[in-house]
């Protein structure tokens, strides 16, 4: 009985995953191969053309999603790494306060946060309206409905998920190890490049994973901030599923997105050196 306890404790978790992940996935996989229409219903025909058709019609949005997700991830890394570094090494006794502040926006709903960005960036809103009123910006200046707005929104919304894992990795770096590098003639920059950065890579890896995937698939930012010219794949899936009731196309697109992301992650892990990442993480 004793030996079984850990398995029994894990059972609810596995059941949860089995029921709410595997079963819907299987159902979706099945739907993605069916044909028919919303009125007469769909029937299994093993129609692989669902995939080719969907991809043919929406490749622009798919590529755009990957591009926006990638841009947002790079932006998050550029903004987030210094913040994580600062909290880990300079935060002192207030570390937990800073981490709490970082998570504070999450007490507000995701959609509301994005809508508040919409307010902020509105053509004649608080920010630009005022600046335009002062004549500091041309009257036709706008940010909403641009790539910048969507990528900015994505960056804003997932930034903490980039910062937290990097912070955890940096927090574990022994300051003595950095001192040792400096003692061995490394400048501050060299000590960072040769010691701190490599030791923080597992955090960067986790951060990229936790932000790139949801940012790429997100429909909310594009819908609220993007206007019509910045539609992402998440919006298409939503529309196909909820508006057009074209379940096979929505399912096929979902699976395509999933496959592309998985391949992307494996390539990324390879490039970064899985072995190094895992080894440093196992320290």
């Amino acid at each position, binding site marked *: 009985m004793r030996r079984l306890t850990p398995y029994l404790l894990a059972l609810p978790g596995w059941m949860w995953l089995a029921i709410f992940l595997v079963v819907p996935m299987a159902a979706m996989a099945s739907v993605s191969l069916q044909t028919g229409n919303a009125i007469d219903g769909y029937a299994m025909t093993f129609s692989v053309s669902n995939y080719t058709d969907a991809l043919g019609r929406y490749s622009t949005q798919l590529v755009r999603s990957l591009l926006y997700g990638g841009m947002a991830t790079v932006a998050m890394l550029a903004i987030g790494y210094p913040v994580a570094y600062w909290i880990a090494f300079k935060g002192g006794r207030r570390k937990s306060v800073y981490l709490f502040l970082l998570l504070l926006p999450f007490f507000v709903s995701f959609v509301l946060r994005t809508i508040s960005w919409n307010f902020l960036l509105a053509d004649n809103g608080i920010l630009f309206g005022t600046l335009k009123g002062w004549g500091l910006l041309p009257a036709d200046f706008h940010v909403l409905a641009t790539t910048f707005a969507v990528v900015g929104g994505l960056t804003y919304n997932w930034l903490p998920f980039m910062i937290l894992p990097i912070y955890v990795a940096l927090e574990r770096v022994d300051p003595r190890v950095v001192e040792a590098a400096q*003692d061995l*003639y490394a400048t501050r920059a060299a000590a960072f490049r040769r010691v701190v950065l490599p030791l923080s890579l597992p955090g960067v890896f986790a951060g990229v994973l936790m932000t790139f995937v949801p940012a790429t698939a997100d429909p909310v930012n594009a819908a609220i901030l993007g206007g019509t010219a910045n539609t992402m794949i998440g919006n298409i899936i939503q529309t196909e599923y909820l508006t057009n009731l074209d379940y096979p196309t929505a399912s096929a697109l979902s699976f395509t997105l999933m496959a592309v992301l998985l391949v992307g992650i494996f390539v990324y892990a390879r490039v970064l050196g899985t072995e190094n990442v895992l080894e*440093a993480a196992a*320290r």
Partner: protein
Amino acid sequence: MTSAIELEDVVKEYHAHGELVRAVKGVSLDIEEGEFFSLLGPSGCGKTTTMRMIAGFEAPSKGLVKLHGQDVTNVPPNKRDVNMVFQSYALFPHMSVWDNVAFGLKQRKTPQEEIRRRVGEILEIVDLVGREKRRPREMSGGQQQRVALARALVNRPRALLLDEPLGALDLKLRQAMQIELKRIQREVGITFVYVTHDQSEALTMSDRIAVMNDGLVEQLGGPREIYERPATPFVAGFIGTSNLLTGTASAGELKIGDGRVLVPGRDGEVTVTVRPEKITIGTDAPESGLSALAGTVSEVVYLGTYNSYAVRLADGAEMTVFQQNAHDATATAERGDSVWLSWQAQHSYVIGS
């Protein structure tokens, strides 16, 4: 000849929780070339801070740090020709043993060929040949310790700073490493500055020792000098076990109860130390010409090679006595016995004389 390391009235103060902490209150040291020098003291005495100022990790609030006659007080650690072995070793966990050891040479843009030769040589000295590809965490504490040593020594620094480097090792390994360190120091001929709170370690290895307490150097001298002639009651108490007797002497004698402590040529207030192993324990009153004190055995502790007795004197003070367990020895006293303690006049050392 200029000394390897000079500290001139170095002070380190900092603010913590709104309070001024004076970690080092004015330390002057002159450490010679090729010397094995120890900074010995209890935790919080300022020894590590002193060493970190030599390494350049801390800037002194006042005073000067000189390396080979050159003022380096404001020179950053990467530009100082000293290397440090950290208490926790601080090895680079993501690098192999080889890359750890080669780090300093690479930073100094040493030619590849020379790096290969020197790293190979030093790994031989610390007996780690064949383990070049290991990661630090795949190695035992003693091996990591030697990697840390090699990583510092390979750069041939003018001085090597060691911050309690054996603290994390178990007793057997620690003793082996003490001998090993001493051998390596002789072999490379580099000045070693060794920080420790372990007095036996300092006595075993050092040429000279600075005993520190509360941010100041209490005594500076060779191991024998510090052990035999402690300058202050603190040193007497910190180095080994010591019995302290205080009182007013007249005509070269300090009276305690029925007994006497011989302090030739002394009058007035004195503090005398006597080491436990110098004292003989017996049942009969000893002959004149010896210091002699009467007391009652309050505790006997069997310690293998010797017994440790606690003897309570008439005035309530407690003396510690070590008696060797010789081949024919039976315990000479039991708990509750009335005994006489005696020792030769030369073994009473008057503190501060």
